[in-house]
């Protein structure tokens, strides 16, 4: 190294030791900065993966329930019936009158022993009855049913309950009489007080009904408002006021919409507390600005030559918009609508305000019957002390996230499919 030597060009030395050190420091700081950026991204993605993994890991157990094997010998039990008497409506009652609950309890004791029979849920006979109604042939012989265990035994199976329940559960499991099975009923039942009996269908149906109301209100109003503002609105103070209020509404916290729903909609329709109708109306006000803003962007993207061409061959302004602009902008509007609906589907706070947090044990019949929705159901279950609810809550979260993924996937698909370069 000959740093001090002046080179041939006669300039001052640049590659001095100090220079080299400075450069190295600068490069090191460059590397550190880049690494910091990369780790910021990776931390964020890692949190996402941890969150999703955590929910999936917890939630998979939520699709299962602890079931006991009980063999029932129907000819010996005196229960009778056939396809004509065991209809949907009367069947359950007919079987109850014939003493099915006692029969189930008796055979539970026969199959499992007195101690373990107490582990069969009190309502288990309804499961038996449902299977008999589906298939009256079962009454001709003896059949082994998988019946839901009580919450205590179920937590014993997970090594969480009291010591004696754990011992009992271990013994039954070793005998092959107690096991965790996939529970298709989780997707078909509604809310209940015990984690072994709850299901998600009630909340899901409530969500679907609410979303229908939201869509029916927000989509037409949003699209029409976007058309007006983009195509016809004169530039004046009124238009500015409309624009400002739409932009503001898009930024208002969702709980404020809940306060509006509570003060206005429930005052107008006091009888429809916690009904999908009110929930849908509240969420529609929240979704509408999103649709207007995305709709305006989609309409703006339609080139003026289309409008000019239509006007030139004699179409009226209304015909130009409804025959030419709207069909071309529709894919973009739909994408924005799906994104807005996905946001509304995950929204909880405004629905708590209008009373959709009530305990609803049966799926809603229509738009005006009391209901709950998926995110509120998750919130309600998260408050339960019973450990079994943790898994059920995570399972419900998986379903909610699947729906959101599906909607966002659809939006991306639509965007890619209809993406146009004019």
């Amino acid at each position, binding site marked *: 190294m000959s740093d001090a030597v002046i080179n041939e060009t006669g300039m001052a030395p640049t590659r001095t030791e100090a220079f080299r050190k400075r450069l190295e420091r600068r490069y090191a700081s460059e590397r550190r900065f880049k690494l910091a950026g990369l780790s910021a991204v990776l931390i964020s993605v890692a949190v*996402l993966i941890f969150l999703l993994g955590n929910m999936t890991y917890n939630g998979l157990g939520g699709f299962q329930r602890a079931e006991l094997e009980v063999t029932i010998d129907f000819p010996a039990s005196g229960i009778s019936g056939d396809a004509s008497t065991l209809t949907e409506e009367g069947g359950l009652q007919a079987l109850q009158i014939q003493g099915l609950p006692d029969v189930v309890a008796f055979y539970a004791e026969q199959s499992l022993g007195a101690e373990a029979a107490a582990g069969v849920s009190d309502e288990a006979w309804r499961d038996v009855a449902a299977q008999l109604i589906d298939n009256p042939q079962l009454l001709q012989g003896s059949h082994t049913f998988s019946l839901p265990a009580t919450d205590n035994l179920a937590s014993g199976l997970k090594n969480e309950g009291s010591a004696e329940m754990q011992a009992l559960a271990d013994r039954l499991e070793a005998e092959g009489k107690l096991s965790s099975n996939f529970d298709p009923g989780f997707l078909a039942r509604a809310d209940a007080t015990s984690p072994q009996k709850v299901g998600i269908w009630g909340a899901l149906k409530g969500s679907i009904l609410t979303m229908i109301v939201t869509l029916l209100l927000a989509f037409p109003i949003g699209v029409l*408002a976007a058309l007006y503002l983009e195509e016809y609105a004169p530039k004046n103070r009124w238009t500015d006021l409309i624009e400002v209020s739409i932009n503001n509404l898009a930024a208002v916290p969702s709980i404020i919409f809940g306060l509006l729903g509570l003060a206005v909609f429930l005052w107008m329709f006091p009888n429809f507390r916690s009904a999908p109708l009110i929930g849908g109306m509240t969420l529609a006000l929240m979704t*509408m600005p999103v649709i207007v803003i995305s709709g305006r962007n989609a309409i703006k993207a339609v080139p003026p030559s289309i409008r000019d061409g239509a006007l030139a061959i004699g179409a009226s302004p209304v015909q130009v918009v409804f025959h030419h602009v709207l069909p071309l902008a529709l894919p973009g509007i739909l994408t924005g609508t799906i994104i807005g609906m996905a946001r509304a589907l*995950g929204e909880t706070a405004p629905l708590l*305000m209008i009373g959709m947090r009530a305990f609803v044990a049966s799926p809603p019949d229509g738009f005006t019957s009391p209901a709950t929705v998926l995110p509120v159901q998750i919130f309600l279950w998260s408050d339960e002390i019973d450990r079994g609810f943790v898994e059920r809550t995570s399972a419900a979260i998986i379903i909610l996230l699947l729906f959101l993924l599906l909607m966002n996937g659809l939006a991306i698909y639509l965007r890619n499919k209809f993406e146009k370069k004019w």
Partner: protein
Amino acid sequence: MTSITLLLIAFGLALAGWLAARARAWSFQRETDARRLAARPNYHGWYVALWIAVPLLAFTVLWSLIEPALILQSVLASPAAQSLPAFGFERDAILAEAKAAAISGNLSLFNPAAESLVAPYVQAIQKYRLIGIGVAAAIALVAGTFSFLRVKPDFTARTRVERTVMIVLLLASLVAILTTFGIFASLVFETVRFFGMVSPIDFLFGTFWGPDPMSNPDNPDPTRYGAIPLFWGTIYIGAIIAMIVAIPLGLMSAIYLTQYADPRVRAWLKPALEILAGVPTVVYGYFAALTVAPAIRDAAVAVGISSASSESALAAGVVMGVMIIPFVSSMADDSIAAVPSAMRDGSLALGATTSETIRRVIVPAALPGIVGGVMLAISRAIGETMIVVMAAGAAANLTANPLEAMTTVTFQIVAMLTGEGSFDHPATLSAFALGLVLFLVTLALNFVALRVVKRFREAYE
């Protein structure tokens, strides 16, 4: 339900009018082939259909509002109503039960007093249903005939239909103003009622929050309605802890993704970040309450802080920060992209490294946009509800210790309105006052932020 019947009638008659008018317009076209029609037959159809449907819909709305009152009047006039209690809850319950029985036809009544009222109810409902349908038919007949008679070859049906379309469009865009007005009016109305009981000074400057929904509503204790701890909790969780997490992570993510990342990597990482924004807040809340909060408490206990609470401001704030990351990063992304590339190229050409260019040129140039984005993020964080409801706790604490439970404005709105308290109680009404404060603060933040972002954008154009 009469209103559903009326709606079906309206649509049926409108369809009939549409078909009739269109057929008539077609017949003009056939008969007078020398003359051209002023509008296509479809427009004549729409003209008549609108003339029938619009008044009928208006009548349906009006009727559904006044019909219950008319029915009630007629039932109260009947002799059976003489035995009713004079007023109050019991009277309403009896009337409601009799009405439900009359509509459903299910006569197994809980309250025997309601039994004699069922028959008057059935009569009244039938009577007013007939009246309603009769009036609707009359309206449809008059409007339909009037409009149908105007269907002539030279009638400009299209311009009239289009005028209606324009009115509908205008009405749709007015919904936004109406909503804003509705929010403002309902918040202000209830807040004024609240301030009638508790003075605004006690509310805005008091330092103790502990409304008792069970206390006597006529004589509230104003010292229990001091909202300062709530404001502090909201700011501490939403604007301090959440931003300590969200700003570095969001900003550095945006810088990495715009300046360093390979386009193919960016195409994967950016949507992955955006998924964070799409996760429902109730899921974040559950995650915070179930996983993050216990972890933080255990960690605090492990280092010797035994007072750590299982519901902590830190847990709520950190998870909220994670939720806000994609928001900050996309705002920063936009403002970095708006910096002219000549500035970046100039700096690089002078020999600065990429990180020096970013730190000394790009970020300072993009700063107003980034600050605007951060303000929008804060406004979103302080309006966020579910995470704090599930993870932050209910205790109104005026402390800087992030390991303690803390409560926020949104938490208290939920707590006050989902309780058992009556609607006239100051504890319930205080939720609306808190809502008004939240609304005004977020609005101001958004307004200023958007101005800052806009101002900055213009600087380089």
